[in-house]
């Protein structure tokens, strides 16, 4: 399960541990997890509730410091960074979509996408054009000036995907991107997401509890009790998992 060491990946973690000291003793939310994601690879992180996948995602997103271990993003260790540097890494090298409340409500679709360029001081004519083109590719060409409140959940998720990709991040993270969508829209959103990650050569990780959505990913990592317990790499294994078949 450990990644090969002679190849460099956009994302690589080594023996990541996250513990919480509680009244009932020490809880290992993430326990010795090592993984890697290659450029253009879309990985799903799945597991039952409380398996540690959301904690792992928060660590990968530079939102949470691990108790030990290393998280190498483009070779830079997030675990050894201060808060200021981690904010800069989130801004420059990571794209993020969340379950809900994804967009800034007072910015319209194109402004939400441009926000990442603005934050990185890279909003120029080309950037503006790219934001419009990306939204158009996601089927939102007619919704550029709509505010989040004027869009459906699926449309909002697609704007969030555009925002997560517009600044050419090394790593794109999605936390339950289909949680608030109906099945048809959920498939559309994940398929589009996967297509763009492959096309733009980004490293992508999606946390999901909906195993049906894994049919669009390249690899599935199964977590249980904080540990990475199984990896599904072949198309057959993944499709079996997506159709609800046995996977042990």
């Amino acid at each position: 399960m450990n990644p090969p060491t002679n190849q460099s990946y956009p994302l690589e973690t080594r023996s990541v541990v996250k513990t919480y000291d509680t009244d009932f003793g020490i809880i290992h939310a993430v326990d010795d997890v090592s993984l890697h994601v290659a450029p253009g690879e879309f990985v799903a992180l799945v597991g039952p509730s409380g398996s540690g996948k959301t904690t792992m995602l928060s660590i990968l997103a530079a939102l949470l410091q691990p108790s030990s271990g290393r998280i190498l993003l483009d070779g830079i260790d997030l675990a050894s960074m201060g808060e200021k540097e981690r904010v800069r890494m989130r801004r420059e090298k990571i794209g993020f979509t969340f379950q809900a409340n994804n967009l800034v409500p007072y910015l319209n679709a194109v402004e939400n996408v441009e926000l990442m360029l603005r934050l990185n001081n890279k909003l120029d004519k080309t950037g503006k054009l790219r934001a419009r083109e990306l939204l158009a590719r996601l089927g939102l060409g007619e919704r550029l000036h709509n505010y989040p409140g004027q869009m459906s959940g699926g449309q909002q998720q697609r704007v969030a995907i555009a925002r997560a990709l517009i600044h050419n991040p090394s790593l794109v993270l999605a936390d339950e991107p289909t949680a608030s969508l109906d099945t048809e829209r959920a498939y559309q959103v994940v398929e589009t997401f996967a297509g763009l990650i492959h096309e733009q050569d980004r490293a992508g990780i999606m946390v999901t509890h909906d195993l049906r959505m894994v049919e669009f990913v390249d690899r599935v990592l199964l977590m249980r009790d904080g540990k990475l317990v199984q990896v599904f790499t072949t198309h057959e294994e993944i499709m079996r998992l997506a159709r609800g078949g046995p996977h042990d």
Partner: protein
Amino acid sequence: MRRLFSMAGYLAIKEIWHNKGRFLLVSMVIGLITLLVLFIAALGEGLGNGNREYISKVDAELIVYQAKSDFLIGASRLPRNRLDDISRVNGVSDTGRLGTSNASIILPDKPAPLKVALLGVDPGHPGEPGVLQGSQLRSNTAKEAIIDRSTALRSGLKIGDNLVIRTTQGTEDKFYDLTVAGIAEGQQYSLQPSIFVPFNTWDKVRPKSEAELNMSNPIANVVLVKLTDPNALEQVRQRITAEVNNVDVATISQAIQALPGYSAQQSTLNTQGGFTLFIGILVIGGFFQIQVLQKVPQIGVLKAIGTSNPVVAWAAIIQIIIITFIGVLIGGLFSYLFSLTFPPTVPIVFNGTTSAAALAALMIIGPLGGLVSIRYAVRIEPLKALGLSS
């Protein structure tokens, strides 16, 4: 730094524009607070001015009172020989007596007489106000008067007009005819418009008790003293106290503070103004705190995608400044429009300095009130805000 403000300004303005109605409502509340603060300040200025206007404009540096009169002009009595003693003190350039009393002016075309402060002054000496129109008083026995601007406005009297004064002497009402010699700027005394008459004329026409009717030696209330060198105020003051029997000496500012009710009135109004500003802080603080609580997830998203804390904080500060500025502008405009509707008899004076101080205080209370909410916004953790924490 420029990038920080540009990003913060962008987010602040976009949010205000998107939620115009909500923010305008808060601006209106701040506008009402501004209106209240400005009116309390103007009322304080108007009432204070009505009390102190003559004393604050008098052409003298010191006021000499009878000893132990607690610097109360009405309680002080100084005979003529005191004036001579004071005039002889080294450092005194000029002196003038001031006699104060009340009278009514009978106006033929108005149903009610106009109540005024009747002030007796020595023509050509400290105490006599400079005229804007007409001429100064000619002699100490001339049957003429200088009226101040507020008397002129309320009575309609002009230069050369006949002025009929009614006073009570003994038990009888007496009427005296005077000629309006000049009109001076506003010189209110004891919240009344003023008329100035030569000292001996004042002594003749002023209200008197039975006992005072046969007195031949005119008694002044206080003596106004002009100095050769205004910088030698303290030295001359000590010299007068030492060399003249039975007197106390006050500076103009001490005399103003000692005017009956002046300090109590001003401190009451200042407290009211202070409380209004305090309420303003609570209202603005409350609004922005509620607003931050409502947008915790939104701030969480901004932070999660890499917006720094300084940007989040400055966006909130810029919003508060803009909203407060608009509110103060609305309040200032309404105050101005309201002030146009008030008759001159209402003691409300929009003084530039006082209003500017009130407006500056209002501009400060916005960010001050919002401090708690800014601190809260900065402390929002994206993990918790987005529900990602275990």
